[in-house]
């Protein structure tokens, strides 16, 4: 897809699938679990792509593939239009860095903060020990940690401080893209806001591109420029943040938006018209994966996979829509 404002896609995924073999009981045979069922995404420079979806829908799997921690079963990852193979790990690492969800397990407890933050420099043989020390100092300052903490150990830090260390480690080699896999969901709101502010500032300052994974739509709305909604291993809708929040198309996106609980005492708990059961990814529903929970489902939904519809700025996979007459907009079917 080439938008009219020709922006460069720094990262592009085409038809990524990932299948795991999982055993359920001890006595059962391993069965294929399609964690990702053909994901195509583009990440534009300086964008923040929010990725939302229910637990287990494949968000982290996607992040791992982007980070080179897993190899996709099929599909390609392109960086600057160039395909990335397993051999390009080092290269990939210099450009894409992660921030993980759990600040407690994401730092090696046996290493000092300084060692943790300077590790990427050491691995990529950047600078000498003096310049590395300087870089660490700069990073710690940037993420708002006191200088004296460099000799401390992760065990001495609070969750928020740890997450800052993780951010410092991710940014010390000046990556272009940062994959944030639920960076704040383990934190208290008071800490969450600090980290979100920090991420926003850093993006401004360093011109970073984020893939921001979260299940908290409020957070995504706050930070993201584009949003992709994932359901059972597939992207069901993708659109610029404003457009998506203003007019969600896919029924699942709608349900997600409805379930956001704003702190407004005048409202009561919304009634979500959504089946309670998240489907078993080992035996996904036929047709549109979402149809058993969809209030607007039609007959076709249970038999035929939904069409992939693209407009100028957004895409949606749903039987309820069709391409508009101009070929660039989507209208209800």
């Amino acid at each position, binding site marked *: 897809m080439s938008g009219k404002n020709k922006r460069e896609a720094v990262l592009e995924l085409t038809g990524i699938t990932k299948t795991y073999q999982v055993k359920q009981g001890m006595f059962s045979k391993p069965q294929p679990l399609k964690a990702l069922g053909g994901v195509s995404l583009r990440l534009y420079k300086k964008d923040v792509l929010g990725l939302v979806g229910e637990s287990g829908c494949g968000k982290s799997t996607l992040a*791992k593939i982007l*980070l*080179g*921690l897993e190899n996709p079963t099929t599909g390609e990852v392109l960086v600057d239009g160039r395909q990335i193979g397993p051999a390009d*790990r*080092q290269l*990939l*690492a*210099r450009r*894409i*860095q*992660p921030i*993980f*969800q*759990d600040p407690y*397990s*994401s*730092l*090696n*407890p*046996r*290493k000092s903060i300084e060692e943790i933050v300077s*590790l*990427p420099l050491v*691995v*990529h043989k950047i600078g000498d020990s003096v310049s590395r020390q300087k870089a660490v100092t700069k990073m710690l300052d940037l993420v708002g940690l*006191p200088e*004296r*903490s460099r000799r*401390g*150990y992760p*065990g*001495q*830090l*609070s969750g928020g*401080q740890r997450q800052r260390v*993780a951010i410092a*480690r991710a940014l010390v*080699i000046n990556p272009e893209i940062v994959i944030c896999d639920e960076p704040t969901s383990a934190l208290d709101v008071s800490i969450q806001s600090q980290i979100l502010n920090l991420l926003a500032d850093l993006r401004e300052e360093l011109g970073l591109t984020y893939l921001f994974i979260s299940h908290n739509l409020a957070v995504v709305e706050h930070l993201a420029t584009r949003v992709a909604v994932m359901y059972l291993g597939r992207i069901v809708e993708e659109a610029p943040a404003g457009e998506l929040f203003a007019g969600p198309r896919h029924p699942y996106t709608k349900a997600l938006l409805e379930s956001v609980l704003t702190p407004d005492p005048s409202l009561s708990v919304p009634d979500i018209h959504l089946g309670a059961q998240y489907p078993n990814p080992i035996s996904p529903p036929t047709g549109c994966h979402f149809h058993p929970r969809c209030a607007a489902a039609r007959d076709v939904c249970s038999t035929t996979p939904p069409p992939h519809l693209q407009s100028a700025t957004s895409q949606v996979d749903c039987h309820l829509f069709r391409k508009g007459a101009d070929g660039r907009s989507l209208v209800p079917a």
Partner: protein
Amino acid sequence: MANAPALTAETIVAISPGAMLRRRIFGHYGLLFGLSVLALVVAAAVFAPLLADHNPYTQDLFARMKPPFWMAGWDPDHLLGTDQLGRDYLARLLYGARISLLIGIVTALISGMIGTALGVAAGYFGGKVDLVVTFLINVRLAMPVVLVALAIVALFGGSLQIVILVLGFLLWDRFAVVMRSSVMQIRGLEYVNAARAIGCSTTRIVLSEIMPNVVNNLIVVMTLEMAHAILLEAALSFLGLGVQPPTPSWGLMISEGKEMMLFQPWLITIPGVALFLLVLAINLLGDGLRDVTAPEAKG
């Protein structure tokens, strides 16, 4: 801001991990006991020539089985008496500490190396490697240790080296099992993923990200296997297929003294108690180390 002191102790906790560990060690009596007994035994082993005024190998057929100092008729020249060949029991006990420690340490090192290599490989790489290692562990576990050890020693003739080698090659299973599971556990943690995402090589990840975090388990297993090896050597000696005389191994001393145990019980009591105390100390040390380094003890 004018805050009461009770409330300012925050942000970065003052106590360093080292100090914390020290505090925990000094609060753990079992560990302290184990450590001090072990230190004593090590001292006995190292300074045996200074502490013993007899050669442990010099025999005197005319001064056989002299009783130790707490029994009537003891000889001031032989504090712990003499054995069946009139050798000074104290000297043998002191030199025997060297043998037991040697067996324990070297066996634990050999089996530790084998087991750790297998366990770490299985835990880190998983998949086929794991299958193979699990299979090896199963084969090893299915082999009756004492039997196989006996058979090999019977075959090659007993000597210190052979006993150590045999035990070293038989006792790696626990290392492999423990290392495998702890590496698997750590491997799933996000800092390992982070290191991989940074671009660290496998070697680096294993050596500097994973190993430091499982080394405490390794040390614990090491102490337990040391104790295990010392006991097994004693059992092999008891069955006549261990270290060869006149080496003053404690196990051998028990085995030699056992013939007279109904009449001269101290012949087995002295090395028996020494053995018991040493193994107890090592086990307590191992347990203690596990306790003080366990993550749940943190904070």
